[in-house]
């Protein structure tokens, strides 16, 4: 079997490795070659020890080791730390920063024998839906290079869709794995909050952030997730086994929050594609029911209070004192404000101001505390709904990939990208985006995605339905 680099799954590559048709070194060379010819600007850099990593993986295989990720090349979003490697979160403020330790997910991937090839482009500090807010470059969508790949994990999505790596890690705070996955026609998975350690992930919104994979198949997402998940003493928000229940029966019922589909700006193509996706799920044996989940429609409003609040607090650490960019100024206060002036881009500054405002005396109750209370209502509503249905289905995005530059004037319009995805972050529940077909716009076939959400710790429900959905489309 020869490898089709654009579509090869981890499972395909693993069988080529175990049959001896390929080695980790030959795979690494093949993908590095593809990366060197990349025209989408998906990567911010490749690592200098890829060959050594691959040789070590081949040695482990020769010694009799087997593991689904042994010798598999993977890319990592530029906000996940690898000891001794540059990592910038797509920001000038960390331009020359070298990670002094590795994230827990990296330790786990390395133990599993994955070969980490490079770091992918992203919106600065994961704030954005297009990679246009990266301080370095705008990644292009491999399906139409005039369009964005989505974001903030746009580099990871473009890298997988373009066949530059078989899979990549991203991080998802409001949809940053699922939305670019949908735009680029790949699978994107956000785990339950606390399923995967955030140790070594550069923080954006700490009560929302989760690390998740972008892959060619649901099975591949499951492989990576199962490798990186689990409690971690270095992240006290990871949960121990038994905190939440696990699915007892095979999933049967899928709920559709009809009211949310009528949100302004949901394209006709997306609605039609979603209807067709539901038909496929029906033909795969699932029962589709309408559900009421009014709080879900307010998730985006909660998000744009809670997230900037956490951003303004998390990004306080970039002050030019102990690491990162520092301007030369006569006194410390001026150094703080000038370092942050030169180091942060406009979107980061906007969210810092917004977060500072909603947390400031006099507005804290009106905005932040109110949003936290609303969040509690959504969490309860999810629990109630998931006692009746096994999963919730929505489109992943209101429209397919937009043109580069189309949304740079109006931040609120860009924020609306997250309307279907933020609910899972606010509620903490797991969610997946699976390619569901295409929409033809101006001669380009642009991918669309189906999103499924499930109860806390019910990732298996999503993998089961996701695989059935993939099957139903073939």
């Amino acid at each position, binding site marked *: 079997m020869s490898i089709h680099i654009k579509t090869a799954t981890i499972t395909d590559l693993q069988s080529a490795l175990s049959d001896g048709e390929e080695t980790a070194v030959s795979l690494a060379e093949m993908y590095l070659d593809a990366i060197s010819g990349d025209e989408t600007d998906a990567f911010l850099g490749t690592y200098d020890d890829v060959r050594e990593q691959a040789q070590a993986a081949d040695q482990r295989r020769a010694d009799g080791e087997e593991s689904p990720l042994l010798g598999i090349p993977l890319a990592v979003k530029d906000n996940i730390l690898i000891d001794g490697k540059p990592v910038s979160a797509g920001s000038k403020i960390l331009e020359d920063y070298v990670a002094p330790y590795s994230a827990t997910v990296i330790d786990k991937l390395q133990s599993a024998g994955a070969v980490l090839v490079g770091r992918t482009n992203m919106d600065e500090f994961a704030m954005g839906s297009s990679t246009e807010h990266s301080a370095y470059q705008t990644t292009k969508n491999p399906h139409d290079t005039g369009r964005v790949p989505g974001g903030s994990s746009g580099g990871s999505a473009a890298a997988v869709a373009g066949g530059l790596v078989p899979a990549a890690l991203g991080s998802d705070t409001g949809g940053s794995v699922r939305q670019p996955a949908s735009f680029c026609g790949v699978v994107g998975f956000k785990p339950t909050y606390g399923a995967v350690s955030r140790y070594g992930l550069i923080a954006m919104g700490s009560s929302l952030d989760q690390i998740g994979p972008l892959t060619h198949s649901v099975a591949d997402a499951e492989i990576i997730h199962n490798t990186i998940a689990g409690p971690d003493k270095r992240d*006290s928000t990871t949960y121990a086994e038994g905190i*939440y229940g696990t699915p007892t029966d095979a999933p049967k019922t899928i709920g559709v929050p009809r009211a949310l589909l009528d949100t302004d700006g949901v394209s006709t193509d997306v609605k039609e594609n979603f209807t067709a996706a539901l038909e496929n799920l029906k033909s795969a044996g699932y029962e589709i029911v309408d559900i009421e989940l009014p709080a879900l429609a307010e998730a985006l409003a909660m998000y744009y209070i809670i997230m900037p609040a956490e951003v303004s607090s998390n990004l306080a650490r970039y002050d*030019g004192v102990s*690491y990162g960019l520092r301007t030369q100024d006569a006194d410390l206060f001026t150094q703080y404000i000038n370092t942050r002036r030169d180091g942060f881009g406009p979107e980061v*500054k906007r969210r810092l101001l917004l*977060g500072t405002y909603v947390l400031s005396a006099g507005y804290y109750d009106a905005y932040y505390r109110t949003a936290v209370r609303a969040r*509690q209502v959504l969490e309860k509503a999810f629990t109630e709904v998931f006692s009746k249905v096994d999963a919730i289905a929505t489109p992943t995005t209101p429209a397919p990939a937009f043109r580069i530059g189309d949304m740079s004037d109006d931040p*609120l319009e860009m924020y609306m990208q997250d309307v279907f995805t933020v609910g899972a972050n606010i509620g903490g529940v797991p969610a997946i985006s699976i390619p569901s077909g295409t929409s033809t716009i101006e001669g380009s076939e642009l991918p669309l995605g189906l999103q499924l959400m499930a109860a806390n710790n019910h990732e298996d429900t999503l993998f089961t339905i996701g695989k059935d959905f993939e099957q139903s489309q073939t």
Partner: protein
Amino acid sequence: MSDDIDIEKISKLARVDLGDADTDELAANIRDILSYVSSVEKVAGEAGAPEVGAVRNVLREDTDPHEPGAYREALLREAPAVDEDGFIVVPPIL
């Protein structure tokens, strides 16, 4: 309630100089966003008494400390300015 956005004051609180950014436009952006997010009130009204979630923030046991200085070099390597005794150099506070 968001008509009185004082960008200069917030930017000072946020410890960020806005350089040549258009502060009127920023204020307008923020006003738009705040007007959009104010709808959370509708939902918040249904909230009951605050509850503790399933995931608890926990402290580790204060045991097994690492060797003093084990990470010192790796961390100081990233500092913008360090003196010969290994202290980070900063400009005067006042």
